[in-house]
């Protein structure tokens, strides 16, 4: 029972990342009609915003280490600590949450630049060409990140206050020994909040209503005198923010490297296919579902029966869904047939 709950939480964590990326993919596809193979790169860029913010905050000076008295020792001390003392250390400790704040404008800018600079010219071209050009863009972004930050994963740490373990076992009346990292819980609930926020934006604001109308029938909305293209561009920016913030929050869980984007993108695409292309609830539901299934498949007991199942279970589910329900779990008729 303990192990099951733990795997459930693990799965929800992973599923949250899939759901956030798949949500952005579906949004972009539903509004602009463009398949964005560079969406995983946005997730990865978000993660590297966190890395850059951390590097910026810990910009250091070599100072003499006073604690060593036998010989002259030097250590790196961040300028922030020199200037602000303990408050500076606290800022550095909170670098990941600060990076989230920084990521919002940065990712919005990147998203808008990407849409206006490249994607816009591909509305009318075939899906194959859209895939190809965004695929090329994903390679370029990945290689630039590799050239700047190196090929090795760069670990980031969550703030001290949430770096411990949460006694989830005691909370649910199970064994005391069952604990789970605080940061992962924070991450899970923030993801849920972001997903809820995006849905609320689309459902309860006038702006969102127009966007939904545009998704349903772009031409009619255009005839009503609404500049739907500009709203779709903003939606692309929002999708970029969602992917980027997800990337920032995932850094303490998985050290980012330049390949991170593609690894998550492939799985997120499978999630979109399983959920049904063009269906936002489908993307979110399938994201969490596949995350949990994958997590259960990687349990020791399951692996003993079917070795290696954790590596392929997601693809097997995708195959099964496609053979029985070709439109995906919540896909509607007429969307991307």
């Amino acid at each position, binding site marked *: 029972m303990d192990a099951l709950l733990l795997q459930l939480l693990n799965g929800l964590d992973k599923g949250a990342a899939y759901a956030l990326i798949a949500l952005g993919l579906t949004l972009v596809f539903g509004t602009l009609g463009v*398949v964005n193979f560079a969406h995983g790169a946005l997730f990865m860029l978000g993660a590297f915003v966190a890395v850059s913010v951390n590097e910026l905050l810990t910009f250091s000076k070599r100072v003499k280490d006073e604690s060593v008295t036998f010989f002259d020792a030097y250590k790196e001390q961040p300028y922030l600590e020199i200037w602000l003392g303990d408050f500076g250390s606290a800022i550095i400790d909170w670098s990941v949450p600060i990076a989230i704040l920084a990521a919002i404008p940065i990712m919005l800018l990147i998203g808008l630049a990407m849409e206006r600079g*490249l994607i816009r*010219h591909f509305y009318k*071209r075939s*899906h*194959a*060409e859209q*895939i*190809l*050009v965004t*695929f*090329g*863009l*994903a*390679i*370029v972004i*990945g*290689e*630039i990140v590799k*050239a700047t930050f190196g090929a090795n994963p760069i670990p980031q740490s969550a703030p001290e206050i949430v770096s411990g373990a949460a006694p989830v076992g005691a909370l649910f009346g199970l064994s005391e020994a069952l604990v789970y990292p605080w940061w992962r819980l924070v991450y899970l609930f923030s993801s849920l909040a972001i997903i809820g926020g995006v849905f609320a934006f689309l459902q309860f604001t006038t702006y969102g209503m127009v966007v939904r109308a545009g998704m349903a029938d772009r031409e009619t909305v255009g005839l009503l005198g609404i500049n739907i293209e500009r709203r779709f561009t903003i939606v692309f920016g929002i999708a970029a923010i969602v992917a980027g913030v997800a990337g920032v929050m995932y850094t303490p869980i998985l050290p980012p490297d330049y390949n991170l984007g*593609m690894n998550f993108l*492939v799985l997120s*695409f*499978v999630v*979109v*296919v399983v959920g049904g*292309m063009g269906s936002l609830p489908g993307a979110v539901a399938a994201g969490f579902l596949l995350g949990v299934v994958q997590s259960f498949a990687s349990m020791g007991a399951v692996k003993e029966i079917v*070795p*290696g199942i954790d*590596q*392929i279970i997601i*693809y097997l589910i*995708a*195959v099964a869904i*496609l*053979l029985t329900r*070709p439109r995906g779990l919540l896909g509607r008729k007429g969307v*991307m047939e």
Partner: protein
Amino acid sequence: MASLTAFQPSTPKRDAIIMAVFAAVVLTAPIWLTPIGASYPDLLQRFAIFGIFAIGFNILFGLTGYLSFGHAAFLGVGSYAAVWMFKLLTMNVLVAIAFGVLVTALFSIVIGYVCLRRSGIYFSILTLAFAQMSYNMAYSVLTPITNGETALILETADPRIIDRALLGDAKEALPSPSLFGLELTGYAAFYFCAVVLILAFWVSLRIFRSPFGLKLLAIKSNQNRMIYTGYNTRPYLLVAFVISGMYAGLAGSLMAITDPLAGAERMQWTASGEVVLMTILGGAGTLIGPLLGAGIIKYFENIFSAVGKTQLSELFAFLPDGLNEALVGLMSLFVGEGWHLTLGVLFMLVVIFLPGGLMEGIKRLTDWAKSRRQGGETVGDGAAHQPSE
């Protein structure tokens, strides 16, 4: 791209001439490639192998328009199968090729059956997912077959049943792949690959000219209409997919022959992307285009990967110091380890500016030259060649 893929009637005589010229060009490649410094066996072999890979990819993408993002998986499977034949039975390359192509065919039937349930984006995503799955499995579960990260290599202790029965257990050193006693290394291996390439090109030419190829083209231009006229398109698509997969398997087996080892990195998504790039760079749907693209990419990969900072600073030594350093710093991003960046940029440039590939570029140039010569009389004719979507 209607003008590129439109059916061009051809006569057997014309095809025979094409084949003769093609064979002559390929077999004399070591001579005419010498001036550009590309005439050494290792690179020539790669030209031929990736040429085969791209020709095969073009049969699927160029004719049916189905964009597969997982073709590198077939390449990897072909390599593994061929190396296993070397290990278990014999060093004879024909056995390895036959087995490699057979295994790839079976593999692609399974994958094709599932992926072809959907078209368009779904198909691309599914093939990509399958390739990633194969790549992951090669590193994890299938380690007994693939030898994981160390890659599958030949060992002196391998059984090689047939060879031992025929030749006895004499050799201590590692044997190399051979064709009935003729050791395939260096130029011998290139000529072997070249002959296979010519055969592969001939098959592809026959497919392009056949009613089967026409049906594939019809699927590309309008699948619904094809279905309404009473054709079940899926079997045709599956056959095209399997043929295309077999070409990739053939290329993979040849890779194992020229260098008897097989590693999972051959199945990575960048490798799948590379063959897509070769095909669209040359011109998807044309006969020669993919070969051209493969040659160009492998040639520049060879040059770019070898260049380092020192060569760059020598190259730009004539510039003032500051400018020199800035330029070298910028350029060094694109060479050596950064070759993939060049590849990605090239990829985007081709898709944005020349979606029909080099063959379309050549066609535009000749059209332009023609209209110049005839004093603008064919302007209306030139407009008729525009895509009619």
